[in-house]
């Protein structure tokens, strides 16, 4: 009985679902259908089983859960008739995949069906096995499939060949069993069998070096002949696609020849003639023909060199590149990328066309072309290519600018012949697309600028002009502000003029204007504004005449609602006003940044930078060195006002600085902890708000030392910092600071083991697994108990995916910290520890109780242990 012609229930259901106007209606219909199918499933009804499963498949396609149908598939597969089996296997492939354990149950039915007398049922079984077989099934059923490779009907042979691909991918050890059968299949005439056999052969070669050698020796000649026949065969309507006889077979043949010819001169020799014939004779006005040519080119590129063929191949790619069809151009670009390592010169000839492709409207093509261009660039053509790309930057789409700037910048960085050219190009990029460049790009530019001491004047003047015209591009504004802050004096006095420059007159007031504009621009973000403030501070010393005006601008930020700006404003204001004598030393030019360390660090920490820049938009890479100075000065400044402070009172002021709570909390925890928080506090002081890790680049020298979490080096860092800035009189005051910091050491060790002690508890134990709780309490908070749980495994097996869970009644609060590992080695050989924190809200009245559950995998089998612990020591 055919369920789809006699009863129309499947059709009815599909109609009903299609008639639904809203999602809710559809859900209602589906729910009703599912309910009746479930009922039928539990009644074990036989008559409509395959119709129900067909319905379930449709419901599955709509995205509803259908797990309850899985067993029905197995029942249908076990049924005797073809229609049932057909639906059963279809359901199996749709509703299940290789990872479900249910699948194991089907192995036996599959085995029977593979040996079935009805070849159509054999076909169904092969199809299911080929699409969803797991490694175990592959191992179990491989002998059947191997036998079917010699079946009389070609339809079964070709299915068996593809099924074998799945088997050897799942269980590579089985590959050798298939080598001989495939060799005989390769002599067949039937296209389907040949096609699948070639594919199997290719996969065998990938998996096994021996198979590759075998096929290379025995089959290369035969395959060349097959390709020859295919190419020269007369018109065969059955396999004809737009005038070409079975292009799919030809492509497969070219591919297997590529595998056989790669790295073997003899095999490559055998195929030269036919490749030349395919490359010259194939029609290139239809997609099918181009597909063959494309494959042929790839084969020519991969096999051992025979001069003439390569020229032919590159010429084909050249023709592809000028094709009007985007698909063809795309594959040409793809292939040229591979060709570039083989024959760079030949690819260079198409440079102009490739550059045109960068400007294409299709993103797929643009992306390929851009990648290709960046491979094509070398010392000799970097200047014209960069110029082209930068020119294009002006007109490109906004969403492409990001990619484009990255590539231009990396090209410029890698291949720039001289610094002035580098700076010029980067300025152009920043002016055009400053909002699209990544932070590292302009950081790198600043590093280069500081290193080019003869170009400081030139650069700062160029940047000054740039922000007049491109003030809306954030990155160029930042670089300009940084440079003006550093080299403002060169800008005004036209120092270090190069011959090519036009002289320009800029007054000190103009410069301050420029920064003021940038600092007040609506679009400027915190980083830019902070940098403006630092630049102004620097200028206040470089331009004494503008000092008052700068002070006024700086003071305006006292009211900023951004803490960072407010703080800088206040600090800088006090530096300008009160500390004339040390200001000039304080705002000296930055020392030259070391290119090597910078690029090394960038390479090493790229992912880290990427992640922090997401989380925290307030990167202050360049501002920081100066802000580091400022709070330090404040610190020293305070002590300078009260001459020679006695240790105790300076402890107070430090305490003030650090905040009482920090000090007291640190004095409670252990020594190591104290040292750590001591440095953290210092770091906070040093970096004014932005955590050290985020500074990413320039200050890291200082910070990397302090990150050692070691008091002593921190003090060294402090000393090192203060030495260039602070006069010797003040430097003496660093020693009390050092004393103070040292003082942290012995001070806080005292508490630690103050509280009552509790004996450890064996919380759970069976023949193999034991769990021990160790308790500790923080003095002063008796209701909180710290528990350290440690698990040991006495069996010889390793437990994986180990998870410990615990639950407590309402009067308790439980906090679980991550476990030390999720794998527990056997033989008591190591343990997992996990910390728990329990807060007892009814401390003194009730004692702890806890329910636990431990789950893990033993030889990939899920295991579960549960238990209740009520024998906790009292008073917890």
């Amino acid at each position: 009985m055919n369920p789809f012609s006699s009863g129309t229930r499947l059709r009815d259901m599909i109609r009903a679902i299609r008639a639904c106007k809203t999602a809710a209606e559809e859900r209602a219909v589906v729910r009703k259908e599912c309910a009746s199918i479930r009922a039928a499933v539990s009644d074990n009804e036989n008559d409509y089983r395959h119709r129900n499963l067909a319905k379930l498949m449709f419901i599955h396609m709509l995205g509803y859960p259908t797990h309850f149908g899985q067993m029905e598939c197995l029942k249908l597969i076990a049924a005797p008739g073809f229609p049932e089996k057909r639906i059963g296997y279809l359901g199996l492939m749709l509703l299940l995949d290789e990872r479900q354990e249910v699948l194991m149950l089907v192995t036996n039915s599959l085995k029977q069906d593979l040996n079935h007398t009805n070849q159509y049922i054999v076909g169904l079984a092969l199809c299911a096995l080929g699409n969803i077989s797991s490694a175990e099934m592959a191992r179990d059923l491989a002998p059947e499939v191997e036998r079917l490779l010699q079946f009389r009907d070609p339809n079964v042979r070709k299915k068996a060949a593809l099924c074998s691909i799945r088997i050897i991918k799942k269980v590579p050890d089985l590959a050798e069993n298939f080598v001989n059968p495939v060799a005989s299949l390769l002599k067949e005439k039937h296209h389907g069998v040949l096609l699948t056999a070639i594919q199997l052969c290719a996969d065998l070669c990938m998996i096994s070096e021996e198979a590759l050698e075998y096929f290379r020796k025995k089959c290369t000649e035969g395959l060349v002949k097959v390709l020859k026949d295919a190419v020269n065969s007369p018109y065969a309507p059955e396999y004809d696609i737009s005038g070409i006889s079975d292009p799919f077979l030809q492509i497969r043949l070219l591919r297997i020849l590529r595998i056989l010819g790669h790295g073997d001169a003899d095999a490559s020799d055998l195929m030269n003639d036919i490749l030349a014939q395919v490359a010259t004779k194939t029609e290139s006005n239809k997609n099918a023909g181009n597909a063959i040519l494309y494959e042929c080119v790839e084969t020519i590129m991969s096999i051992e060199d025979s001069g003439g063929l390569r020229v032919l191949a590159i010429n084909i790619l050249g023709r592809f590149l000028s094709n009007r069809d985007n698909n063809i151009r795309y594959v040409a670009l793809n292939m040229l990328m591979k060709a570039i390592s083989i024959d760079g010169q030949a690819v260079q000839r198409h440079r102009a066309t490739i550059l045109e492709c960068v400007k294409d409207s299709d993103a797929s093509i643009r992306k390929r072309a851009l990648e290709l261009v960046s491979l094509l660039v070398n010392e000799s053509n970097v200047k014209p290519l960069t110029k082209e790309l930068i020119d294009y930057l002006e007109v490109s789409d906004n969403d492409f600018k990001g990619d484009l700037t990255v590539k231009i910048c990396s090209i410029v960085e890698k291949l720039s012949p001289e610094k002035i050219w580098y700076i010029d190009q980067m300025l152009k990029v920043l002016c055009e697309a400053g909002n699209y460049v990544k932070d590292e790009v302009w950081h790198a530019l600043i590093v280069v600028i500081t290193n080019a001491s003869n170009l400081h004047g030139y650069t700062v003047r160029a940047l000054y002009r740039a922000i007049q015209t491109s003030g809306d591009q954030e990155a160029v504004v930042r670089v300009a502000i940084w440079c003006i802050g550093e080299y403002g004096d060169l800008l005004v006095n036209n120092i270090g003029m190069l011959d090519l420059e036009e002289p320009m007159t800029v007054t000190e007031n103009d410069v301050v204007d420029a920064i003021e504009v940038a600092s007040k621009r609506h679009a400027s973000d915190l980083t830019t504004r902070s940098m403006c403030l630092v630049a102004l501070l620097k200028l206040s010393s470089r331009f004494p005449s503008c000092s008052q005006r700068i002070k006024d601008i700086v003071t305006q930020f006292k009211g900023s609602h951004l803490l960072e700006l407010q703080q800088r404003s206040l600090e800088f204001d006090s530096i300008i006003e009160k500390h004339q004598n040390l200001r000039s030393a304080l705002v000296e030019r930055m020392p030259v940044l070391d290119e090597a360390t910078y690029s090394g660090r960038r390479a090493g920490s790229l992912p880290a930078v990427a992640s922090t820049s997401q989380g925290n938009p307030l990167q202050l890479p360049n501002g920081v060195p100066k802000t580091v100075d400022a709070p330090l000065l404040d610190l020293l400044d305070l002590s300078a006002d009260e001459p020679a402070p006695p240790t105790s009172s300076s402890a107070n002021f430090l305490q003030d600085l650090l905040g009482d709570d920090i000090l007291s909390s640190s004095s409670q925890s252990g020594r190591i902890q104290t040292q750590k928080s001591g440095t953290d506090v210092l770091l906070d002081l040093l970096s004014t708000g932005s955590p050290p890790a985020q500074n990413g680049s320039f200050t890291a020298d200082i910070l990397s030392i302090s990150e050692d979490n070691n008091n002593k080096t921190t003090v060294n860092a402090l000393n090192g910092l203060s030495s260039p800035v602070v006069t010797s009189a003040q430097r003496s005051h660093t020693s009390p600071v050092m004393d103070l910091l040292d003082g942290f050491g012995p001070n806080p060790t005292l508490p630690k083991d103050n509280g009552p002690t509790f004996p450890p508890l064996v919380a759970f134990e069976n023949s193999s697994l034991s769990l021990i709780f160790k308790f500790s309490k923080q003095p002063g908070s008796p209701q909180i108990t710290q528990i350290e749980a440690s698990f040991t495994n006495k069996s010889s097996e390793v437990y994986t995916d180990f998870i410990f869970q615990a639950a407590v009644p309402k009067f308790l609060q439980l906090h679980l910290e991550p476990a030390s590992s999720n794998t527990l080695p056997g033989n008591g050989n190591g343990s997992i520890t996990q910390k728990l924190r329990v807060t007892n809200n009814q401390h003194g009245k009730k004692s702890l109780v806890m329910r636990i559950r431990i789950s893990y995998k033993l030889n990939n089998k899920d295991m579960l242990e549960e238990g209740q612990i009520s024998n906790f020591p009292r008073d917890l």
Partner: protein
Amino acid sequence: MIRFILLQNRQGKTRLAKYYIPLEESEKHKVEYEVHRLVVNRDPKFTNFVEFRTHKVIYRRYAGLFFSLCVDITDNELAYLECIHLFVEILDHFFSNVCELDLVFNFHKVYLILDEFILAGELQETSKRAIIERMGELEKQE
């Protein structure tokens, strides 16, 4: 190797989905959604290839239906494009002038045809006539 085949209409309703690699159900839905988003708004002049995660999707539009194949990055795009067309011709021949409704009501037959055309993510038969004949034989078994 073909990772999966999707047949979707313009609204993103999946009419056929065949996976040759194991994926979670939720992941499948995500893939179907993402592929639809990728292909549905592309200009017809653009390439029929889009990069998708670490693979690429070869797609082709026939009236309101999108046929998408996800294949390895090293595979021959043009060949798979031709392969989609061959599949459509087979469907067209089998249903004589196929339309979306044929595929909805006879989805199980579409799967059957696909299983005769592609197996284990590889092309199985390239002759339209052979597949149509084979379908005839299978229908006689019912």
